[in-house]
């Protein structure tokens, strides 16, 4: 029987256990504290805006759209209207339209008919209050019209910046691309704060007040459907569409992502989207997928339908089709 203790503790002096503060540890600690303080100051910097009256406490403490009570939403809509009037000189009507029952939106575009005139892309701007310097600046439009070489659907040889004298060009065809409102939407899955989600009627929307501007969704989207507000949106008062909606075309703040919502402010009120309204060739067809007699179902049942990047499994609500 050994008397040796099994868990012998090596003797330590009190200095060894509690290290006294020497110069090195003091400087380390100070540096760490400084970094922490700097971080804290940076984190609290938005409060300066509170001090200046640019934001209210309500803005800072606003909940996610889906957790807002009707009273809160009402107050927020009023404050957004007032803010828009103060900043842009126009008082809009910001509505909050809910999804309609028994409606799932679908969009189809006739590639045989599209002539690439870009009227849809410009109508998108007129409707959705995107930031733009002048009338010719359509960079923030939700629609990119791609000029494609006939013979294949090859996005790599496409050109969104074509500007010939006349369209359509003989050896080209045109393919407008916008948000496909995917059922399996990669953009909503990558959002770290769930600021973007799919609504009951299939529309993928963004809560601009909840978005933190990380742009993960833009990287995830296979259709280049999302736009980022790198700067505070510039828009002339006469160009502002006053019929606005909280989830769609209200003027966005700086640093958030925006996207096509099939003109939610129009379509949930029963109207056609703006891009369809202006199409000179009638290439665009919009309707309710859940209504078996709708135009969109006629196309899905009777036409040759093409789904862009079907292989990535996004299950879009936007279809391309051909007449011939």
């Amino acid at each position, binding site marked *: 029987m050994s008397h040796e203790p099994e868990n012998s503790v090596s003797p330590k002096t009190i200095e060894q256990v509690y290290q006294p503060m020497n110069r090195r540890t003091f400087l380390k600690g100070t540096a760490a504290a400084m970094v922490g303080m700097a971080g804290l100051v940076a984190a609290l910097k938005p409060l300066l805006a509170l001090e200046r009256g640019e934001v209210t406490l309500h803005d800072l403490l606003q909940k996610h759209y889906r957790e807002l009570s009707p009273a809160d939403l009402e107050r927020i809509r009023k404050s957004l209207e007032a803010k828009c009037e103060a900043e842009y000189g126009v008082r809009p009507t910001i509505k909050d339209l809910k999804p309609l029952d028994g409606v799932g939106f679908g969009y189809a575009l006739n590639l045989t008919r599209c002539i690439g005139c870009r009227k849809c892309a410009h109508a998108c701007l007129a409707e959705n209050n995107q930031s733009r310097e002048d009338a010719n600046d359509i960079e923030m439009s939700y629609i990119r019209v791609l000029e494609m070489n006939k013979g294949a659907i090859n996005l790599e040889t496409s050109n969104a910046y074509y500007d*010939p004298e006349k369209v359509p060009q003989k050896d080209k065809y045109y393919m407008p691309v916008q948000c496909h409102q995917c059922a399996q939407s990669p953009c909503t899955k990558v959002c770290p704060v769930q600021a973007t989600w799919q609504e009951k009627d299939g529309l993928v929307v963004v809560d601009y007040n909840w978005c933190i501007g990380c742009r993960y969704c833009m990287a995830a989207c296979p259709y280049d459907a999302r736009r980022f507000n790198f700067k505070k949106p510039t828009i002339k008062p006469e160009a502002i569409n006053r019929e606005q909606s909280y989830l769609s075309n209200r003027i966005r703040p700086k640093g958030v992502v925006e996207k096509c919502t099939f003109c939610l402010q129009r379509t949930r009120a029963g109207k056609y989207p703006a891009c369809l309204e202006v199409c000179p060739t009638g290439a665009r*067809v919009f309707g309710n997928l859940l209504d078996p007699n709708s135009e969109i179902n006629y196309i899905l049942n009777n036409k040759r339908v093409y789904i862009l990047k079907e292989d990535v499994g996004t299950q879009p609500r936007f279809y391309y089709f051909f007449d011939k």
Partner: protein
Amino acid sequence: MTQRPPTAGNLFVSAPIRAGFLLVVSAGAVGWLMLSGALPARAAETNNAAISTADARSSLPVLPVVPRPPATQPEAGLRSDTHLDKTPPRKTVGLDLVKNGWTYNCMECHKLFPARWHYDRALNEHKDIKLEHGNNRFCLNCHHPTNHNAFVDYDGAEIAQADVVLLCAKCHGTTYRDWKAGVHGRANGYWNSAMGDRTRLRCIQCHDPHFPKFQAMKPLPPLRYPSRAVKGDDEAAAGASGGHAVMTQPHGQGQPDTEPKGPTTSHAP
């Protein structure tokens, strides 16, 4: 296809149809006044007065009174959408006449001048019409031979102007089927019939029936990057954003490589 020298009769035929019903009367009145020894200058000034005289009326053929069907372009879409340009692509010459106060009643002239299947001479009227519609060579392939306000059906029956879709459907059955289903041609207004009305464009609001092929049009400006678009070609190409500089170049034909420094697109402010 030779132009004949304008004989008196030819002149009388050609002038009034082009200018309309009023000029028929005017030209006749001028001719009558000149023949009867009145001063030409005075006659030109008082055309309208001359018509109202009993003498002038008695010397002219009796003009038919025809009903004037409305021929206005139906409104497309909602009135509240003033920010959206919903103009149909067809250039509507005839309807422009309507806007200027004219009626678009073919029988105003054709009561007097019946058309035949085809003439052995060039048309004096409707010269602006370029007929390039499949193998349709004659006016009366579509227009009714006796009632020029109507179109003609297979069996010679009349198709009213408002039912022009049925005329087109005679040949374009599949397109008509698609149009009826709502997937050919544009709809405006409300997709949801429970919430509002929709307007459908009819065939001839977009297609010129005499020349149904869509005319090529100038595309609206491409998207551009405002900060980069004002850079010169060389500068932009030399910079790190060379790839984008290529994008901002206009893709028109015959764009010279050595463009002088300045805006790379014609849309730069």
